[in-house]
């Protein structure tokens, strides 16, 4: 029950408070949360919308009387409570009001004396003010004085400093404290500027002198190589502070650097195989110098780069000169390595791209030149070998074979060596070369192309040289001797050209392909610059030309011989033949020389030779039988008429197989000799045709030709053709003879035998 009372009390208190609150505040917002107000209904006594009548009605209807009474009692009690509360409240308020009134009354009384006090205070403050002013004025004079004094003192100190400056500078010079000296001097500068002309003239002069010394010393320091970089840099900075013309300094230093660079020939050192440390040292020196310079003059980069470039250019020029001489790839690599090192080192210092680019360009040129010169040396070698042929007059032992072998070797080995050299260069992992790799490969191919072209031109120029008879001026040969040897040169050239065209070029092409396709990425690009097909075609053509020329030259010589033979005697008044004419000897001798040359140079045609052997017997027997027949004929012809005889020769010819005289020349001993013999016999026939013979003249020709058969048979390969041509000569002689009566066979035989015997004897003697 207690708890019920308490809650009841609480309920009551709250209600009261709410009501009070509602009283003060007309908005019943505070009680909106009130659970009582929730059910705001007209019967709720607490709500504002309470309607007493309705409440009464509801009460009366709902409650019993007892309830109503109880309610009534409650209500009354409540009302009483409320009245008490209200009375208390009013009382309290009143109390407070009284309290406030009292306070106000007390305040009023307190304020009354205040004004007076304030006036007094003001008075006092005024007096303090006036006193302080008076103190101030009395002290002011003194203070001004003191300030003046202070200023003078400062000035005096400054003057003192300036007067002391020369001494101090002197001291600084002594102690080499240039930095202080410069600082002092610069400090004194404005004064000197202002009063230097009047008051401090002496002083200024003295200090300027001192400064001049300092400047000199500093310059000395800057230029001296023994000082450390730091010191030199400082000195340069100080000099700059002293308004010393820095440009002048710079140019001076640059000049010095240049001068030292000029003496720096590390490349030559490499070339002369000096110790590697020498050029290392010089490069080091150079780099140090450049570094120092950069420290001293930070803005001088451009000039330094220029300088370095000049240096590199100079060295590359030297390299180019060097490359033109015969060097091997190692030498080139050595040189390049050194210079590339130098470039890298300089790059470190200069941090400039253009330098390495520049050197890359230069290296490009150098390598290109190297390749070119390698090939030109090769060309030179080959022509040297060849020209030895012409010089062989003195030393006969230098045979054609040797010359040919040597030049073939030169072409082959030389070509291969160049390739190997290039390979070495490529395989060396020098950075600079790596960059040029593709280019180098391209150049090599180009080089081969040019080399072969050049070689061909050179070969042809050999001929031109002889034709214009400028040979003597070249000092290559001694007149007739050289001319004599010239055809052999042509022969060697022919074989060499053929060899190059057929063997060397395909081989080199192979090697090129093999060596570069693996290395380079763009494997088959080489086809662009090296066109083996065209070149070998060219060489083959040249070879044929040379061979033809050789044959022509040899033939020409014999032809001249024959021409003389036929132009000299008066054939119409020829005397009886006594012996075989000596032109036959000369003819055979020439053929022998040719044969010797050819044997040395050209290969034997094995297949054909065998074939010729196998049917040679039959051919010769046929021609023999034919000849016998003819001889029989001619013997019997003596009795017959001329026309009859002619008829028979012609008939015989008609039914004999026509021999193809002019066939293509091949690169074999047999073919060349055969061609020469054929041409000569044809010439012989032509010479006979333009003469007219009497009987003896005809017989002489018959005898000569008859004799020729035997030795020629040993020389030539195709006996049938030779016999045919010899017969042609006889026929021509018959046609051109006024009285074609041949020699009696026994006489013919006897004369031929005599000559043969003579030959044998000569051979014996000579052997």
């Amino acid at each position, binding site marked *: 029950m207690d708890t019920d009372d308490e809650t009841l009390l609480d309920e009551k208190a709250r209600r009261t408070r709410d009501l009070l609150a509602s009283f003060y505040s007309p908005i019943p917002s505070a009680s909106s949360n009130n659970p009582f107000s929730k059910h705001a209904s007209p019967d709720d006594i607490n709500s504002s919308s309470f309607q007493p009548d309705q409440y009464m009605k509801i009460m009366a209807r709902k409650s019993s009387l007892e309830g109503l009474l109880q309610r009534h009692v409650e209500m009354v009690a409540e009302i009483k409570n409320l009245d008490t509360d209200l009375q208390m409240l009013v009382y309290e308020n009143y109390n407070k009001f009284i309290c406030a009134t009292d306070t106000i009354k007390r305040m009023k009384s307190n304020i009354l004396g205040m004004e007076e006090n304030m006036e007094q205070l003001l008075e006092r403050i005024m007096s303090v003010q006036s006193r302080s002013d008076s103190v101030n004025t009395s002290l002011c004079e003194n203070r001004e004085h003191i300030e003046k004094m202070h200023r003078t003192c400062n000035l005096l100190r400054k003057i003192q400093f300036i007067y002391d400056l020369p001494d101090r500078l002197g001291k600084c010079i002594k102690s080499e404290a240039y930095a202080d000296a410069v600082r002092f001097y610069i400090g004194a500068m404005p004064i000197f500027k202002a009063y230097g002309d009047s008051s401090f003239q002496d002083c200024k002069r003295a200090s300027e002198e001192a400064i001049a010394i300092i400047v000199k010393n500093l310059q000395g320091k800057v230029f001296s190589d023994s000082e450390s970089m730091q010191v030199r840099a400082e000195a340069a900075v100080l000099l700059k502070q002293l308004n010393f013309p820095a440009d002048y300094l710079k140019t001076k230093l640059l000049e010095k650097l240049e001068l030292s660079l000029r003496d720096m020939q590390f490349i030559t050192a490499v070339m002369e195989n000096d110790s590697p440390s020498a050029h290392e040292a010089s490069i080091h020196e150079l780099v140090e110098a450049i570094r120092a310079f950069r420290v001293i003059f930070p803005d001088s980069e451009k000039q330094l780069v220029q300088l370095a470039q000049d240096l590199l250019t100079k060295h590359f020029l030297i390299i180019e000169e060097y490359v033109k001489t015969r060097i091997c790839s190692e030498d080139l690599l050595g040189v390049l390595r050194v210079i590339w090192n130098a470039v890298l080192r300089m790059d470190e210092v200069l941090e400039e791209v253009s330098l390495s680019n520049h050197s890359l360009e230069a290296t490009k040129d150098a390598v290109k030149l190297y390749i070119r010169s390698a090939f030109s040396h090769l060309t030179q070698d080959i022509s040297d070998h060849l020209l030895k042929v012409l010089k062989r007059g003195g030393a006969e032992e230098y045979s054609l074979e040797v010359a040919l072998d040597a030049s073939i070797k030169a072409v082959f080995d030389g070509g291969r060596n160049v390739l190997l050299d290039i390979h070495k260069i490529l395989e060396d992992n020098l950075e600079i070369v790596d960059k040029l790799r593709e280019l180098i490969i391209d150049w090599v191919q180009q080089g081969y192309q040019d080399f072969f072209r050049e070689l061909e031109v050179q070969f042809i120029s050999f001929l031109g040289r002889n034709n*214009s008879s400028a040979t003597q001026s070249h000092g290559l040969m001694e007149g007739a001797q050289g001319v004599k040897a010239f055809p052999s040169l042509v022969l060697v050239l022919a074989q060499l050209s053929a060899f190059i065209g057929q063997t060397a070029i395909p081989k080199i092409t192979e090697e090129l392909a093999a060596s570069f396709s693996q290395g380079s990425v763009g494997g088959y690009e080489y086809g662009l610059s090296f066109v083996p097909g*065209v070149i070998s075609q060219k060489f083959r053509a040249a070879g044929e030309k040379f061979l033809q020329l050789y044959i*022509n030259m040899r*033939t*020409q010589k014999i*032809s001249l011989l024959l021409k003389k033979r036929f*132009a000299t005697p008066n054939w*119409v008044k020829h005397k009886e033949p006594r012996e075989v004419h000596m032109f036959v000897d000369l003819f055979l001798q020439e053929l022998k020389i040719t044969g010797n040359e050819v044997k040395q140079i050209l290969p034997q045609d094995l297949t054909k030779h065998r074939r010729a052997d196998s049917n040679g017997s039959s051919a010769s027997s046929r021609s023999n039988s034919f000849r016998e027949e003819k001889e029989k004929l001619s013997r019997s012809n003596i009795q017959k008429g*001329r*026309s*009859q005889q*002619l*008829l028979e020769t*012609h*008939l015989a*010819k*008609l039914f*004999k197989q*026509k021999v193809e*005289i*002019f066939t293509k020349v091949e690169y074999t001993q047999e073919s060349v000799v055969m061609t020469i013999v054929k*041409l000569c016999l*044809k*010439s012989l026939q*032509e010479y006979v*045709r333009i003469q*007219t013979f009497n009987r003896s003249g005809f017989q002489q020709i018959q005898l000569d030709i008859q004799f020729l058969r035997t030795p020629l048979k040993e020389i030539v390969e195709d006996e049938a053709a030779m016999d045919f041509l010899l017969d042609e000569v006889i026929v021509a002689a018959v*046609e*051109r*003879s*006024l009285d074609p009566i041949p020699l009696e066979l026994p006489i013919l035989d006897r004369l031929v035998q005599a000559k043969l015997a003579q030959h044998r004897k000569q051979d014996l003697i000579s052997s």
Partner: protein
Amino acid sequence: MCNATNAESNMIHMKRCVMKWKEHALVRIGVGLHKKVAGTCGYLCASNSTLRCGTSGVVERFCVQEIAMQAASSGIGYGLKYQARCISDVKADTDHTSFLAGTLSLKEENEVHLIRLSSNGTELFCEGLFSHPNEIWDLVSCPFDQRIFSTVYSNGETYGAAIWQIPELYGELNSPQLERITSLDTDPGKIKCILWWPSGRHDKLISINEENMYLWNLDVSKKTAQVQSQDSAGMLHKLSGGAWDPHDVSSVVATCESYLQFWDVRTMKKTISVECSHVCSVDYHPQKQHILVTAEHESGIHIWDLRKPKVPIQELPGHTHWAWTVKCNPEYDGMILSGGTDSTVNLWLASTNHDELTDERQVDSSARWVDPLLNSYSDYEDSIYGLTWSSREPWIFASLSYDGRVVVESVKSFIPKK
């Protein structure tokens, strides 16, 4: 054989055109100059027909001609009776394309043939056949009178030269005699050639023998010739031939053993000489002054510019054996014909413009090289010594091989388009 000789003797009296063909055939089979297989077969057939139908000449001629046509593909053939070296274009004959050819036979009676190309150009026939007393080494038709020509001849021992006139033909005669206008007799030197004044009617002639050069004054009407001036070639030099400059008629060139020697005809003095070995034939370029073409035994054909006589401006490879004779085309620039002892006739197209040539050489290096050899006519049996262009139809040339075969060919297909 007897049969053949009989036939031969009979045929001398036959009508000339028919007879020539028959003879030709007989010479082939009877005297038997060697022939290629094809040729031989052809002539064998021909001879059969000859022997079979000795009287029906027309058919026979036709037959032979056909075979000749086959043998020489495009060429038209004609056979001389004997071996022969010289053929000449009859320049003065403006109505027909005619040639004169002379035979070279020591022992037989030599002949001069006047050969004419039929108007349709398919047939060669003999317009005249004249016996000549000696073997003929050189024959040149007079440039202004078609009936006059000169020959150089030899009887084996001595040489002589003469101007001849073809007698008026009245259609019916047999083997008429040539009328000798005059002989150009000088010292006994071996006379080499006669040069007529290059063009037009002129009374000057030049004869060249081994040692000397003579300028003659010829009077046709009076039938006389007199030496006007002469000059010797000099010691040890033997002249072998020559040419008269058509551009500058005062200049004559003669071929020597190792050089070309030029004479000024007015003063009969030597002028320049050009070094050139073994030269055997020379011809002036008919259109361009200073241009000269030479054929040399060994080294082929050279073209010279006389303003730069040191080196030839162009070299042509020539022949497998000697290049014997060379002739410039009278009409088409740069077209050169050469005959050689390798039994071929080569037709060349050479650039005679020097500047152009150097340009061309430069171009040469860059691989644009044109073979100057246009064509090689190789259907011959023996060396070619006689060669001439027709001046009336300049695309036609006649060649004469030693075996006496005349072949006329047309080069029309090779003439460069302008």
